[in-house]
């Protein structure tokens, strides 16, 4: 066995100076030599704890073991038994709190195996070296509708198609991917990867129908009673943006994170006027919030011409929900952080555009329901940040359109669909749900895990239900 190094193989990244003027991907990926070297650090535990931490149960030990032996194609095949979207997971999963945190190497003070980077390597290897063929499934003649082409829907659709189901995905927008396409920026997840993964699903027999907003264009009753779908999976995500209800929110230059990111990622406003969707970008941009979406917004703003990008967050650095890697990249790119700062109102000029953000300083008080110390305003500490663009990255909740149009589908007080976490089953027979529409805004991988579980739940349900003649 090779010597187990203390440190992970370093991931090459694009230089910060070059990053802020382009949408090129920031982490560049391992070379084959780096990947094999890193794979060699894996101890091949008899009882791999890392796999316990993975929401889609990637066979981490085995795919890394095959990689260490130089059997990359076999490694791809092993991975895809459980995860059909590894190029996406390898880039956007919070591995540090899922698989890598469980790695046994942590116990001896070493860095854990870089599971996420290896997953990405394996997936990218397949993209460059040709797709690894899998056995085409035997059609079983049963139709399933998937609503929403985001992470949970794509996973559910792929898993069902692999079991022989005739799957149709209905998507409200004109492109697949959901948050992978409209939300996560190109420099973190190139859109070509999402398009390739969708093309693989199409090759597996999954059909995609765009511009269908279920709840308006069709209802779940239409799908099940009129169109012959035996089961439906709701994976519509959490797409409704939250606003602050502070004065000035409707001024020009105030965007929800969803609007800002959709203009740029889905509509390619950064290539205006070649693309028709415009975006008005100021010179000093304040992004309210400190989650991954906030980091995406502020880093995107710098790439589309903002001279200064500010994060304004009412709590401190320790409470922010952004991944460490995203925060580090933001710091490297020159983002300024205003911790313990809460917006009070947005100020505008006579032209109706933003010219400042009035804030108040905060102190941390007692821990709240979420376990985070809740911030309290310091009286008389108001001050004005001179900014000309404000982006609200305050989180999202499920879009109520489909839920309102579907009788007999209970929701909780946050507007989320109530579903069995093990199977995705709702109280309505044949209707399953998973991802952000059930949990509220969470991560891509948790949504994928829910899609995978629901695919199993739907398979069990339809195996019990006789096929209508």
């Amino acid at each position, binding site marked *: 066995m090779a010597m187990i190094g203390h440190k992970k193989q370093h991931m090459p990244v694009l230089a910060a100076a070059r990053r802020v003027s382009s949408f090129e991907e920031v982490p560049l990926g391992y070379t084959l030599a780096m990947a094999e070297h890193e794979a060699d650090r894996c101890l091949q535990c008899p009882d791999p704890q890392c796999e316990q931490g993975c929401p889609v149960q990637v066979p981490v030990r085995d795919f890394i073991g095959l990689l260490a032996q130089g059997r990359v194609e076999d490694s791809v095949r092993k991975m895809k038994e459980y995860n059909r979207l590894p190029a996406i997971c390898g880039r956007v999963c919070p591995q540090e709190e899922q698989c890598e945190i469980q790695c046994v190497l942590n116990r001896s003070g070493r860095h854990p195996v870089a599971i996420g980077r290896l997953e990405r390597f394996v997936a990218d290897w397949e993209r460059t070296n040709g797709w690894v063929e899998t056995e085409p499934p035997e059609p079983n003649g049963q139709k399933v509708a998937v609503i929403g082409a985001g992470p949970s829907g794509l996973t559910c659709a792929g898993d069902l198609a692999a079991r022989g189901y005739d799957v149709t995905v209905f998507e*409200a*927008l*004109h492109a697949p991917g959901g948050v992978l396409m*409209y939300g996560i920026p190109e420099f973190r997840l190139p859109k070509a990867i999402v398009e390739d993964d969708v093309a693989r699903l199409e090759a597996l027999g999954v059909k995609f129908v*765009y*511009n*269908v*907003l279920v709840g*308006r*264009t*069709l209802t779940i009753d239409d799908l099940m009673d009129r169109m012959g779908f035996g089961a439906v999976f709701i994976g519509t995500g959490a*797409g*409704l*943006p939250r*606003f602050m*209800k502070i004065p000035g*929110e*409707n001024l*020009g230059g105030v*965007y*929800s994170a*969803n*609007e800002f990111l*959709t*203009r740029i990622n889905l*509509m*390619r406003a950064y290539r*205006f*006027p*070649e*693309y*028709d*969707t*415009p975006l*008005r970008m100021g010179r000093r941009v304040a992004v309210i919030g400190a989650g991954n979406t906030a980091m995406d917004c502020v880093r995107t703003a710098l790439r589309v011409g903002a001279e200064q990008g500010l994060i304004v967050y009412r709590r401190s650095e320790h409470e922010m929900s952004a991944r460490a890697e995203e925060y580090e990249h933001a710091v490297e790119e020159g983002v300024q952080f205003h911790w313990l700062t809460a917006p009070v109102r947005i100020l505008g000029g006579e032209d*109706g555009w933003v010219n400042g953000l009035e804030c108040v300083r905060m102190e941390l008080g007692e821990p709240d329901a979420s376990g985070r110390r809740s911030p309290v305003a310091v009286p008389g500490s108001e001050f004005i940040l001179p900014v000309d663009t404000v982006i609200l990255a305050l989180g999202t909740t499920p*879009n*109520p*359109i489909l839920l309102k149009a579907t009788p007999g589908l209970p929701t909780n007080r946050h507007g989320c669909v109530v579903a069995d976490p093990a199977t995705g089953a709702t109280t309505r027979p044949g209707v399953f749900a998973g991802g952000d529409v059930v949990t509220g805004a969470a991560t891509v991988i948790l949504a994928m895990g829910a899609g995978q579980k629901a695919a199993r739940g739907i398979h069990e349900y339809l195996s019990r239900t006789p096929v209508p003649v």
Partner: protein
Amino acid sequence: MYRILHVRQLTPVTRLYLIDAPLIAESARPGQFVILRVDETGERIPVTITDFDRGAGTITIVVQEVGKTTRLLAQLGEGDCIRDVAGPLGSPVNLPDGGRVALVGGGFGTAAILTIARELARRPGVQVDAIVGARTHELLILAREVGAVVDRFLPCTDDGSLGYKGFVTSLLGEKIAAREGYNLVLAVGPMPMMRAVAEVTRTAAIPTLASLDPIMLDGTGMCGACRCRVGGENKFACVDGPFFDAHQVDFAELARRTKMYHYEERLALERFQAQDRATAEPVA
């Protein structure tokens, strides 16, 4: 892809398109709209559904050429396809089963009152006046279609070339003063017109709905670009609207928000026209 089955020129700058869109036709209701994207690099724009035919699986839209996207659309003819048409979007307008209703349409807004007029024509208890206006009679669109389904068709022209000489708001004001007894007024048209209608009906305390047309992006409630202040509260026109209580709408803010991208819109249009000229007159 959504095929254009028929195009009809209504005025020099306004065209009617009959589009093959069976799923939308099946579920469309009066007051709803679609979001369309002409081509792969196009923007998403909201357009009111003027008419729909469930049996034929078609919808009708009327589009006036104002910027790049609408001019790009105008270059398409019968048999051509629009890249994306999503809908029906928005909430159907809530219509009464009885009483007197005035439908007020200005400019190409008249197109939007056609589905509403048709729906009201099916309700025997409702009496409908259509007060529609244009600068001159040649610009008055869909007069025959709307006229056929309302009780009284009252055209207005600025130059007096057809019907009442003056603005729709003046005629509406006169009718109200003459105690026509409207129970509901619906206004669709340019924002200054809808705002003026709201002022006319406010003093008479007649419930009035206006169809708002703010900037939209996805049209599904995802971005909030279309947020409008109604009764001091933010509403999404794409989900809660497009029809709102006109007396509660903050029109001044709406007018300002609608102009947010004027500079970019002009830039895109100028660039488009320059390219168009270059294609039309190839340099030897």
